[in-house]
């Protein structure tokens, strides 16, 4: 129990003291036992006051302090630091919020505001008197990072991490690195070739002996925590003998008799069952689809010295101090029939068009027909007010416009039509939009409620659109190819990664950071970061920016070999724990494991993993779990403090004065809306829907005003209607 407590009550200029009688409170708490200092101060956070506090603490040998001011969100750390400067453990500090919780919301009732503040302050004093000195938890960490996903985000991050001296494991699910950018021939805004960027980054990675790349690899199991994640990965076989020489592998590739679906080219063509995504794909070893070749006995026996169809997958265990997830995105796949996709022969998606353009260097040909005009329909699978994907995919406007510029440059005589909802070529990308208009690309604006319709008219494909730029006229556009500008969605297997690492995912299924501004690449799991498009739609620059931010975070974290984490975590009284396992079941972060305490099996909390969420404490049947700074003693004493009676005098008069009776607050004239509402109360008592019907005012408006009118005693509630759905109101 703390015996020498200091209490500071802040005026906040007048923000607090205009309504809460802080001087009176200051005097009142001076009489409390254990309170040595109790003062009202003009600005608690002012430098001068902070200095005074330090002096007070030292002069009076205070063992705990309470500052009653604004929200802890604003100044918790300010005053914790004051405590620390005065040589007090920062955990012996409690902040009481009498501004957001008393003066501001109860400005109409100063006395009640003061009473409430008194209760909160007493609760704070009680809490601080039970506070314990806590030290941050120091953890040793391993200087190695696991990067999951070798797209542009993952590769860039791996290079940076390696350059800073970390050991890096880069795990790629596909057999070749590069991710999505390998599928695009020219990338905006630099017009670089996506594959060349991939090759460059791969060669760069090869320069670092401390990067180990695993392709065809997935994460299978994760345990451990910040500083020491232990991760099992499965590496799928390529079915090519390590001893096989390059020429024989190439021969096998050339002679392979079986073809399979070409994922890399989005199914536009087929590929051999021994393949590389594209000739220069890296690592430079092809992959065999063993399943597809299982009946091609002649072929496989001919190449028996090259192929090993019995090769098994390998499982490896890695230890990593920290994890960066860069698993990227999937293309939104239109449903069959969505704008004629798969039902009308010349409807494709933007990624498909990008592949087509690369496959057709001279003339743009699709299904044997030369394409001279294309209609792009924007926002397909994005910005759905009714559907799941509410977000804007952010890069597709620019991608499309850039593709349109490329089309013209590459194939010259081509006309494009753009059916958009809004053009979002933010920043410098705007220039591409201007260029596109100037080259004669035609833009049409449609609204989600009146979507374009793709139909076939004899030999031609027609897109009909209600054009909001031409007074909503119905326009007919004839196009050789209709291109659906599909957005980005979370990877199908994002949920697997999310479950393995406990990274929360949002309703949009992308991984969630802690805070978009303040902690943009951090996840709630300590030591696990996210970067690139697995977090949400981004273009390449933005993807790389975020993954590099993650990489720097990791470097900073691992640099010293130890990390210090907040001490607010759970602790188990091992003497009393009976290891029922209930706490372990409810812990979302798998922080509780069975451990041995002498001979006894008890619950052990992993300090590095526990987030102090508190879920375990109430489920413990023995009540032996405590959360630091939120112990039972602290919480119960706070409740006691708040429940105590106070005798607060109204300012100036020296005696207790009742606040004005309701209804006495005379309004000379009611606002117009009030009068309208009163006029709309035609029956003796009315429900809100009735008043809404009578007045034609918006429902929210009526509800809002009725509440105020009730407070001013103009109307009173008069029971509920028969179905118990609405309250009745009547005039008073």
């Amino acid at each position, binding site marked *: 129990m703390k015996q020498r407590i200091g209490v500071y009550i802040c005026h906040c200029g007048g923000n607090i003291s205009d309504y809460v009688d802080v001087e009176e409170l200051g005097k009142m708490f001076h009489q409390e036992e254990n309170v040595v200092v109790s003062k009202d101060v003009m600005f608690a956070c002012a430098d001068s006051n902070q200095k005074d506090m330090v002096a007070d603490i030292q002069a009076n040998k205070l063992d705990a302090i309470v500052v009653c001011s604004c929200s802890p969100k604003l100044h918790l750390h300010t005053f914790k630091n004051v405590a620390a400067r005065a040589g007090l453990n920062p955990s012996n500090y409690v902040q009481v919020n009498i501004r957001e919780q008393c003066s501001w919301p109860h400005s109409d009732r100063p006395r009640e505001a003061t009473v409430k503040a008194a209760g909160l302050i007493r609760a704070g004093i009680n809490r601080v008197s039970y506070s314990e000195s806590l030290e941050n938890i120091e953890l040793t960490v391993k200087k190695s990072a696991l990067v999951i996903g070798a797209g542009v985000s993952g590769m860039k991050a791996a290079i940076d991490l390696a350059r800073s001296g970390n050991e890096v494991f880069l795990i790629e699910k596909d057999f070749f690195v590069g991710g999505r950018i390998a599928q695009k021939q020219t990338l905006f805004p630099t017009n670089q070739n996506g594959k060349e960027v991939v090759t460059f980054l791969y060669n760069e990675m090869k320069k670092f002996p401390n990067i180990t790349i695993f392709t065809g690899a997935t994460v299978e199991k994760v345990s451990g925590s910040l500083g020491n994640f232990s991760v099992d990965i499965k590496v799928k076989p390529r079915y090519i003998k390590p001893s096989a020489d390059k020429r024989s592998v190439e021969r096998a590739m050339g002679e392979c008799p079986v073809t399979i679906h070409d994922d890399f080219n989005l199914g536009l063509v087929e590929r051999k069952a021994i393949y590389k995504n594209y000739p220069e794909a890296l690592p430079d070893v092809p992959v065999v689809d063993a399943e597809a070749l299982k009946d091609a006995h002649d072929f496989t026996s001919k190449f028996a010295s090259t192929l090993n169809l019995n090769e098994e997958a390998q499982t490896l265990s890695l230890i990593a101090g920290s994890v960066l997830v860069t698993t990227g995105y999937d293309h939104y796949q239109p449903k069959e029939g969505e704008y004629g996709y798969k039902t009308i022969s010349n409807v494709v998606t933007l990624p498909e068009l990008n592949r087509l353009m690369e496959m057709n260097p001279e003339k743009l040909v699709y299904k044997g027909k030369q394409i001279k005009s294309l209609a792009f329909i924007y926002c397909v699978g994005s910005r759905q007010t009714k559907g799941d994907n509410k977000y804007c995919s952010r890069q597709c406007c620019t991608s499309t416009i850039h593709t349109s510029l490329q089309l013209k440059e590459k194939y010259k005589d081509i006309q494009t039509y753009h059916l958009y909802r809004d053009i979002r070529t933010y920043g410098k990308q705007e220039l591409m*939009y*201007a260029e596109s208009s100037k*080259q004669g690309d035609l833009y049409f604006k449609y609204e989600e409620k009146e979507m374009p319709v793709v139909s076939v008219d004899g030999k031609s494909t027609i897109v009909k659109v209600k054009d909001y*730029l*031409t007074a909503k*006229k*119905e326009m007919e*556009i004839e196009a050789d190819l209709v291109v659906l500008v599909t957005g980005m969605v979370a990877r199908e297997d994002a949920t697997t990664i999310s479950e393995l690492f406990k990274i929360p995912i949002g309703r949009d299924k992308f991984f969630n950071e802690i805070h978009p501004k303040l902690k943009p690449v951090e996840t709630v799991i300590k030591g696990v970061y996210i970067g690139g498009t697995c977090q949400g739609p981004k273009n390449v620059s933005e993807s790389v920016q975020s993954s590099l931010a993650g990489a720097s975070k990791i470097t900073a974290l691992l640099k010293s070999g130890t990390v210090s984490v907040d001490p607010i975590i759970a602790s188990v009284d091992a003497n009393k724990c009976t290891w029922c396992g209930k706490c372990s079941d409810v812990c979302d972060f798998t922080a509780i494991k069975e451990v041995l305490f002498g001979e006894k099996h008890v619950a052990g909390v992993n300090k590095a993993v526990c987030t102090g969420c508190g879920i375990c404490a109430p489920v413990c049947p023995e009540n032996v779990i405590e959360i630091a700074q939120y112990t039972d003693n602290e919480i119960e004493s706070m409740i006691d403090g708040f429940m105590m009676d106070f005798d607060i005098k109204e300012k100036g008069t020296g005696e207790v004065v009742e606040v004005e009776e309701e209804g006495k607050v005379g309004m000379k004239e009611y606002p117009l809306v009030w009068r309208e509402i009163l006029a709309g109360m035609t029956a003796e008592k009315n429900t809100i829907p009735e008043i809404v019907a009578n007045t034609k005012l918006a429902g929210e408006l009526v509800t809002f005003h009725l509440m105020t009118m009730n407070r001013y005693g103009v109307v009173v509630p008069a029971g509920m209607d028969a179905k118990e759905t609405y309250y009745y109101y009547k005039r008073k």
Partner: protein
Amino acid sequence: MSRVNPKFATELSKYGSSDFNACFNCGNCTATCSLSTADSSFPREMIRYTTLGLEDDIKASLKPWECYYCGECSSECPRQAEPGELMMSLRRYLTAQYDWTGLSGLLYKSLPLSITAFILTFVGVIVFAFSVGFELEKMIHFGHLFEGIAIGTIGLVILMPNIARMWYFTILKPKTKVPFMKYLKSMGELFIHMFTQKRALGCDDNQFRWFEHFILVIGYLSLLFTTVALNWFGTSSLFVIVLGYVMSAIVFVVTIDFVSSRIKKDKAVSKHSQPSDIFFVVWLFFMGFTAFLVRLFIDLDLLEMNKWLYIFHLTVLVQWALIIVPFGKWTHFLYRSFAMYFAKLKEK
């Protein structure tokens, strides 16, 4: 339902404007235009029709004639799409559409063709002069006769049918129902606009140009009247002679300012001058100036020199009457006034 036709843009650019594709429909131009109203808003709408190639809508529209090319919209356009110039080009395009002979279109689109026409008419005049042995008297007599006949024929054969076509495109084809009485009642509109161009006054900062234009129209019409009806070159009435001097002087003095601004390109209207615009002002200047000199030489009795001067004057006159009036920019004088009249008819 309208079918989008991107090829139209290429066709229209032959009439001058080529930047309109840059438009991204922000509407700044319409907001800036001091003549655009809620009921008749432009120029954005016309740009939209043009980029999409909605020919029927363009032909049915009177809006291009409602613009007096102050150029405000072009200077405010964030994409430098030159909306004012587009309106101008649309006027040229419409002129070509209204013309049943199709010659307007050909001459607008091809400078060589225009020059050929000018040369041919010149050759014609020389041949004629040769046939009358370069006798001044006979030439002046013929010139006077030619003027009268040309005005009648061109009016009847070319201009009237063209106005009828304009009426067909803008009123009849879009199925606007106009009661007969309205035609009569709105007549006033036609003449007011024809002689005063009062609408141009609505343009901000445009008062002086309007005034110049107004004086020019009055001067030109009076000069026409003096030469054709009062036979200026043949008369001995002092009043008519002085009137002719004054009117021809007005025409060439005002046109000097117009020509110089076309050369200096200092006003928005003159930035993108097409040959047809240059021909129009330059020939107007020549008309006034040569008429003035011809009469002066008569009065000074410099007959030998006057022969050549008159041949020059006659050439200008013939080119004016056979090329510029029926197929060139002169017609905007008619179409603008009729557009205001038709717009009045279309009003609900």
